């Protein structure tokens, strides 16, 4: 019962265990209060040229002395040399990220995880529904649609945030709308200047017009929001195999060996974070799984 992997194949990796590559912060775009996008370039030239990622995958970003955090990639997969991460400063590591300046170093491992299967849905209608920072892992899909708009049917983004000040990528909204991407935005609490919707994201569903026989739904946000997105999607007769969710869990490795991100039989870091709802259905309703 000795392990059957050729020694030579991994012997040279013995000191590579969980060891990051180095990237430089090349630009910081403030997005909202306590949220910014960090644009990173891998320092090593050949690594930078080889690096590729798919829509919805994530990297483990490492700040020496603080630790690692799993951060989804929010930039365009067609431009993999500049990797964007939209980060909310909320934990130990991400607060350390908030103190970084341009030209500072960040450790990077990745990309990890499954991707939104957007390219399988060419010619169909697409509904993207996001809550809060959940728009970040969907932005690569928006780039894909934006770059190849003629490949897709009707595209609707249903997006909500706590307050108008918490909305991400607001400068890009007009650019998206110019490309015939319909945008419906809601907030939990309005301020004096807000003239849009107030309420939760799933509520936007009934206003969206799309061909229910020919639509895919991608959703990322708080689990309670996604639960109702699934409910609304199924109510509109979108089959479970055309609903995809991206889940979040505590992650340490990205390779299904630290155990933290388990949910039922899944390691969210390698079997997810993007799941077809059909696959999740037996587990998604279980509390605190």
């Amino acid at each position, binding site marked *: *019962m000795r392990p059957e992997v050729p020694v030579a194949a991994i012997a040279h990796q*013995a000191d590579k265990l*969980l060891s990051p590559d180095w990237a430089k912060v090349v630009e910081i775009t403030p997005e909202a209060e306590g949220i910014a996008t960090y644009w990173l370039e891998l320092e090593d030239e050949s690594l930078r040229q080889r690096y590729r990622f798919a829509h919805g995958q994530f990297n483990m970003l490492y700040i020496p002395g603080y630790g690692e955090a799993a951060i989804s990639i929010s930039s365009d997969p067609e431009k993999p040399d500049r990797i964007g991460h939209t980060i909310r400063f909320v934990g130990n590591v991400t607060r350390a990220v908030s103190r970084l300046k341009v030209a500072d170093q960040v450790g990077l491992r990745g990309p990890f995880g499954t991707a939104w299967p957007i390219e399988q849905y060419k010619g169909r209608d697409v509904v993207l529904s996001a809550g809060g920072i959940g728009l970040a892992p969907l932005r690569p899909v928006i780039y894909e649609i934006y770059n190849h708009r003629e490949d897709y049917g009707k595209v609707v983004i249903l997006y909500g945030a706590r307050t108008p000040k918490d909305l991400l990528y607001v400068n890009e909204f007009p650019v998206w709308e110019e490309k015939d991407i319909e945008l419906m935005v809601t907030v939990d609490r309005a301020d004096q200047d807000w003239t849009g919707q107030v309420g939760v994201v799933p509520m936007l569903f009934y206003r969206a017009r799309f061909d229910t026989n020919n639509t895919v739904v991608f959703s990322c946000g708080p689990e309670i929001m996604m639960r109702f997105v699934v409910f609304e999607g199924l109510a509109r007769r979108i089959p479970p195999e055309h609903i995809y969710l991206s889940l979040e869990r505590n992650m340490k490795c990205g390779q299904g060996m630290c155990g933290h991100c388990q949910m039922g039989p899944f390691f969210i870091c390698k079997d997810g974070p993007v799941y077809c709802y059909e696959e999740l259905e037996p587990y998604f309703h279980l509390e605190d799984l």
Partner: protein
Amino acid sequence: MPDMKLTLNNEVVIQKSELDALLAAVRQQGYQTVGPVIKHEVLQYGPIEGISDLPQGYTSVQDAGSYRIKNTGHSRYFDITPGARTWKEYIYPPRKRLFTLSKENRHWERVKIEEEIPKYALVGVRPCELQAIGVLDAVLVRKDFTDPDYFARRSRLFILAVDCLHPGDTCFCASMGSGPEAGEGYDLKLTELDDCFLIRIGSDIGLAVMQELNWEPATAFCQQAAQRGLEHAARSMGRHIRDIESVPDAILDNLEHPHWIEVSARCMSCGNCTFVCPTCFCWDAVDEVSVTIKETSRYRVWDSCFNLAYSAQAGGNTRPSTKSRYRQWLSHKFGNWQKQFNVLGCVGCGRCITWCPAGIDVTEEVKVFQEVSS
């Protein structure tokens, strides 16, 4: 030495005193010999030189939440069943430095560290523990990812397994199919009879070691004695789980059963069961910064699904209750582990029963779910 050529899977007999020569021959092959030793009134694993270091005459008295060693003065060397420690610490260290970085001009440089990976000969690996190493192999040496540190340590191991003739009071390896006879994966396997050791050769290195020794062909009498001993051991297991094939579904079909609340009222969420478990593999990674802030080292340390921080994330804790954490542990070991790695996560060693301060007995908990689903 008799005029017979030794080959793989041969069974031979050596005098007990010849074990010293056996260990010396193993060291000759470049291994450090580690084995069972009594320390702090508990059985642990540590460096051994020869037969005099072994816990001859000792036995352990174990029950849910209780462990005592007793010297009954018997003559056997490998009779005492394990304590809290596992061989896991030799192949998957509780604390391992991943790397050290030093900062110069806002730039992190990796500090070169020479680390030689030790070659251990594990002496006295019991059948359940041998199976546990096989379970760790399935988790950490996979097609899609292999832990290079584990692999390096694991592939340098020499394993001297021992059949378990006197299982302990919390043992249930016969139910899990991992004992009392040692399965595959050893270099040498030893069965301790009254006046000799019966030895079976499992690998080429094991063969090379045996060629150095004074051995005799095994007689049918010895082989029958070993067989009788193993049959008796299987009958005298302290604990049982019946119909193990039904367990994964019995648990996974009842994830919302009220019994989880009942058991969580007894569970203290201390994590003892996970740290004494020979197959629990979860870890955390932590940074330690030098006082000058110029240097930081990253370590991988064992973690437990019973720790609150284990499932903490920005959006809140995904397993905030003891109920959810105990359910994760039991349903992983006896259910989802099989879905993930095609093997159950439990080998029936009984440590989690013995070392649970609340005396929670997994065999009893599993039974409850079998009953409600039948």
